[in-house]
């Protein structure tokens, strides 16, 4: 299923930063597939949401990019910049705090 965009929007940057902190560098399609694989196809990251988020992170100086010729085409790789490496820690903590509050608000039992 494609996840509700509104739910995804607030955490999309954190997801991207976290994936890049674990994978050094990735290209757009690879990120969508990684999300699909990790969530066993439950969450689908749409291109219309992914690329604006990637470019915003790049414009904010959190990502570095490099274009390379791969398999007869030009591929743009995204990686964390120095600022991005610092920001990913903050973003993850923010997300964890948010999830904890959400669990309390929705009376969910902690599953981790």
């Amino acid at each position, binding site marked *: 299923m494609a996840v509700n965009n509104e739910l995804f929007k607030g955490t999309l940057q954190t997801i991207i930063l976290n994936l890049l902190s674990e994978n050094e560098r990735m*290209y757009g*399609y690879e990120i969508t597939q990684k999300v699909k694989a990790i969530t066993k196809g439950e969450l689908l990251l*749409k291109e219309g949401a992914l690329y604006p988020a990637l*470019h915003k992170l790049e414009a904010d100086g959190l990502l570095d990019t490099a274009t390379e010729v791969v398999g*007869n085409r030009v591929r743009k790789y995204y990686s964390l910049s120095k600022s991005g490496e610092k920001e990913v820690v903050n973003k993850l903590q923010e997300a964890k705090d948010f999830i904890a509050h959400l669990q309390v608000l929705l009376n969910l039992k902690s599953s981790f």
Partner: protein
Amino acid sequence: MNLNLEQLHQIRDLIAKRGFLEVDIQMEILDHIASSVEEKKIENPTLNFDAAVNETIQSFGVMGLSAFADGLTNSIRAKYSRLFWRFFFSAFGYKYVLLLCFSIFGIYKMQGLLTANVFYIFLVTGLLCVFGISVFSTIKPSLYKKFASFKSGNSFLPLLGGTILLTNFAMNIVPVGYTIFAINVQQLVVSLSIVLFILYFNAAIRTAKISIMETKSLIEKYRLLYN
């Protein structure tokens, strides 16, 4: 399996037919579609190329490809816009405050020393030079104009004309000889607008230069593949 050049050309033509003509936008969409097609072909080797492309395009949904391209275009614009404003506001950092104040003071004093006509000649000559530099620095082969990066990065230069008009407006709006605490307000307003104009010009040129460098790098890779 990797798609061959002919298949990549087909995808590129398909993207162009849908109205996405900027090369850097095409390149990013192309890599995404080609990666998806390659994966589909690995999962199902009997699937033919056209069917794999159609499946991929359909997976974007009705507005998918447009949303994808619009997202890319907007984010490239936003990237250069942020870059421009970062350059512009960097001049207000503590390192340059003295230089800024000195420039405003220098232009203010110059107006007092020169007659209005001579100062106006200096101003117009300066502005024409700025205009000439900006036009000269952005003259590039037509291929550059097919890149969203180039267009976005250079979009601030045409607005220079607006800042010239603002400076002129500032000169005319304040009455001649009007003073506050012995400061000639018109001369101060003109000094401020000229300094702001210079800062704007500096930020616009620096943003344009970065976009030209990025576009040049993309063109080299693009030529390597498709020429």
